[in-house]
C-alpha cells in the first residue's frame, strides 16, 4: 500500500489540489499577486506557471479589490477562479466584492446565478510579520450568509477541502495557517474531496471536548497528550469548516464528555468560540454540562512584532493544558 505512506507538506498538498483541479477542469484558473514565476509568497503555487502557463496562473497587479472582484465576475460568467490573497489580511481591501457582491449575488438575483469563486487566505501569527500580516479573520467571513469558510489542520484535508471548495457552486474562503505550510502528512494521490460542513473527531476522550481548527488542533492534541499523563482524557474536534458549522458532531461530543473548551487564534470576543458556546447553550447538550464553557482565544489586541508579545497574544499549548486541567479538575 505505497499510496498510504506518501507524505506531502501542507503547501505541497494545496499545490497538488490546484494542479488536480486545473487538470480536471479547463474552467479552473488561478489569480493572485506573485503566484507565477515567484511561486507565491509562501511558495504554494511553486512551478505551476511552468506546467499550466501564464493564462491559467495569472500574476495580478497589486489591486486586491479589482483582482478579487474580477474573480467574482469571472465566476458568475462561468469560469472557476481561485484567487490567492498574498496574506488574508489584504482581503480587507476587497471586502466590498467578497461581502456585498460574491456573497449576495445569488440571493439578490433570485437564485438565478451562482458564484463558484474560491479565495485562498494565508492567515495567522507566529512569523514576526506584525499587526497587518498576522490576523485570523475567519469569524468576519463566517458572519456573512452566502459565504462558506473552511480551514484545514492537515495536509490531507488541505487538499481535500480545497478541491471541494473549487467544485462548490458557491463562494468559499479557504484559510491556510501560515505556520502549517511546512508540516508533513499523508496525502492521497489524485482526486478526492473532504466534505465542507463536516468536523472530525481527531482524538477520542471522555473528560472534555476541545473544539479547534487549523494550528489550534495541533496544539490541542499536544495538550491532550500532556493531560493523558495526568489521567485526563480529552476529546479533540477538528472543526474543518467554520461556516456552516457541524453542530451535530459538537453536540454529540459534549453530551458524552460534559465539558467544552473552544480554542481559537482569532480575537476571543465575538469570535468562533462565542458561536460554538452559544450553540451548545442553545442545544440539548446544555443539560449535560458539568462545568461552565471555556473559551481560549486570541488577545484583545493586534498581533505585536516582539516575539515575546506575539506568543502571549495567542493561546499556546501550555495555556490549553492549564485551562483544560482547570476545566476538568477545578470545577465539578
Amino acid at each position, binding site marked *: 500500500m505505497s499510496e498510504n505512506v506518501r507524505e506531502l507538506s501542507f503547501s505541497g498538498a494545496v499545490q497538488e489540489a490546484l494542479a488536480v483541479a486545473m487538470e480536471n477542469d479547463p474552467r479552473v484558473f488561478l489569480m493572485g499577486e506573485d503566484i507565477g514565476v515567484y511561486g507565491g509568497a509562501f511558495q504554494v503555487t511553486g512551478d505551476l506557471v511552468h506546467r499550466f502557463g501564464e493564462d491559467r496562473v495569472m500574476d495580478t497587479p497589486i489591486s486586491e479589490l479589482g483582482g478579487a472582484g474580477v474573480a467574482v465576475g469571472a465566476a458568475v460568467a462561468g469560469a472557476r477562479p481561485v484567487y490567492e490573497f498574498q496574506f488574508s489580511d489584504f482581503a480587507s481591501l476587497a471586502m466590498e466584492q467578497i461581502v456585498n457582491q460574491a456573497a449576495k449575488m445569488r440571493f439578490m438575483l433570485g437564485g438565478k446565478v451562482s458564484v463558484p469563486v474560491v479565495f485562498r487566505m494565508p492567515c495567522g501569527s507566529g512569523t514576526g510579520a506584525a499587526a*497587518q500580516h498576522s490576523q485570523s479573520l475567519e469569524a468576519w467571513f463566517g458572519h456573512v450568509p452566502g459565504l462558506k469558510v473552511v480551514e484545514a489542520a492537515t495536509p490531507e484535508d488541505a487538499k481535500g477541502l480545497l478541491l471541494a471548495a473549487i467544485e462548490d457552486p458557491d463562494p468559499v474562503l479557504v484559510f491556510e495557517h501560515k505556520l502549517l505550510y511546512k508540516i508533513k502528512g499523508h496525502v492521497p494521490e489524485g482526486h478526492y474531496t473532504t466534505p465542507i460542513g463536516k468536523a472530525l473527531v481527531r482524538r477520542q476522550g471522555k473528560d472534555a471536548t476541545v473544539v479547534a481548527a487549523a494550528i489550534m488542533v495541533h496544539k490541542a492534541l499536544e495538550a491532550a497528550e500532556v493531560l493523558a499523563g495526568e489521567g485526563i482524557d480529552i476529546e479533540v474536534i477538528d472543526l474543518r469548516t467554520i461556516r456552516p458549522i457541524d453542530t451535530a458532531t459538537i453536540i454529540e461530543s459534549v453530551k458524552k464528555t460534559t465539558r467544552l473548551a473552544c480554542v481559537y487564534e482569532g480575537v476571543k470576543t465575538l469570535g468562533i468560540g462565542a458561536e460554538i458556546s452559544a450553540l451548545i447553550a442553545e442545544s440539548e447538550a446544555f443539560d449535560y454540562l458539568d462545568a461552565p464553557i471555556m473559551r481560549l482565544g486570541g488577545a484583545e489586541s493586534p498581533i505585536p512584532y516582539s516575539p*515575546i508579545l506575539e506568543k502571549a497574544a495567542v493561546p499556546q499549548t501550555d495555556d490549553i493544558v492549564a485551562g483544560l486541567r482547570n476545566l476538568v479538575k477545578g470545577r465539578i
Partner: protein
Amino acid sequence: MAAKSATKSVEQGRNLRPFYANHTPEQLKEALRRMWLVRRFEEMAEESYIRGLTHGTMHLSIGQEASAVGICLELTDKDYITSTHRGHGHCIGKGAEVKYMFAEFFGKEEGYCRGRGGSMHIADPATGNLGANGIVGGGLPLATGAALAIKKRGSKDVAVCFFGDGANNEGAFHESLNIAAVWKLPVIYVCENNQYGMSVSTERSTAVKDVATRAAAYNMPGVIVDGNSIADVNEAMTAAMERARNGEGPTLIECKTYRTRGHSRSDRNRYRSKEEIESWKGKDPIPAFEDELMALGILTQADVEGVRAGVEKDIQDGFDFATKGTNPEPSSLLRGVYTTGDAA
C-alpha cells in the same frame, strides 16, 4: 533640516544647479551622512537578521537612498511623511536615530514602536513620520488626510507620501490623488519606481509606462526624475513644495530607481536577470553624490571619509544600545490598543 536662505550656500558666483546653489555645504554633508546612515543601517539590519537577532521579514532600500534623503532634505519636523514597507530610508531621512530603529528591530521597549511594530511599522511621530506601512498603498489616504489637517489649521506645512510603483495600482492611489486635487491639498506624492512590485514588473502590471502620466487624470503636475540623483529628486521636491505652500495643490513626483537587493528575505530573484541587477549597482546613488560633491569642491576626500567614519560609529553605538534593550513584559500586551485607560 529644510534648506535655509542661501547666505552660506555654496558660492553663488558659480553656475551651480539649484540643489548645490541653494544648500550650505553643511546641509549637503548632512544629506550625504543620512544616505550613508540608511545604507549602513540596512546592511547591519540584514546582518542582524542572518545572525538571528531580528525576526519577521524586512525590505531593504539599498540603491534607493537618494529619493528618501533628497525629499526629506526640504522638510521640518512639522511636515508629515507617510512611508512604506521599504521605509528605513524615509525614517532616517526624516531625522530618526538609528539606535531606536535597531531597538525596534530587536523588539525592545526602547524601540520607536516599543517593539510592537518592527521593520514594517517603523515610525517616529516626533519628527513627523507617521509610519511605515504593511499595506501597499496604505499611506496614500493617510498623507492626504494629514494634508487636509494642515490646510484646516492654516499652516504652511506639507505632507509627503512615499509609495512604490506597485501601489499605484491600488484604488487608494486613485481615490487619494483625486481628493487631493479637488481640494487643492498641500501633499506631495513621491513614487519610488524601482520597476517591480515584488516580482511583477511595471510593464506587466501597469497600463502606462510612467506612473507620472497618471497625474494628468487628476489634474496635477506629474514629474519624472532620476531617482538615483539626489539633486534631481531635490529640485523636483522644491518646486512641489512651493506649489503646495502657495495653495496650488498636489504634485506627483516619480523617482526612477532600482532596488539592488531582493524584495524581502525570501526573494530568489527569479523574475530578473543578474545582468540587470549588476548594471544598476553601477548607478549607486551614494558614490555618485560623493563624486559630485568632491568635483564641485564642496567636500574634500577627508570630509567624505569623516562622514563615513561618523556613520560607522553611529551604527555600532546604535547596535550596541539596542542589544542591551529591555524586552517587553507579556503583561503589557494590551497597552496601546486604546488611548483611554492607557498608562502613558
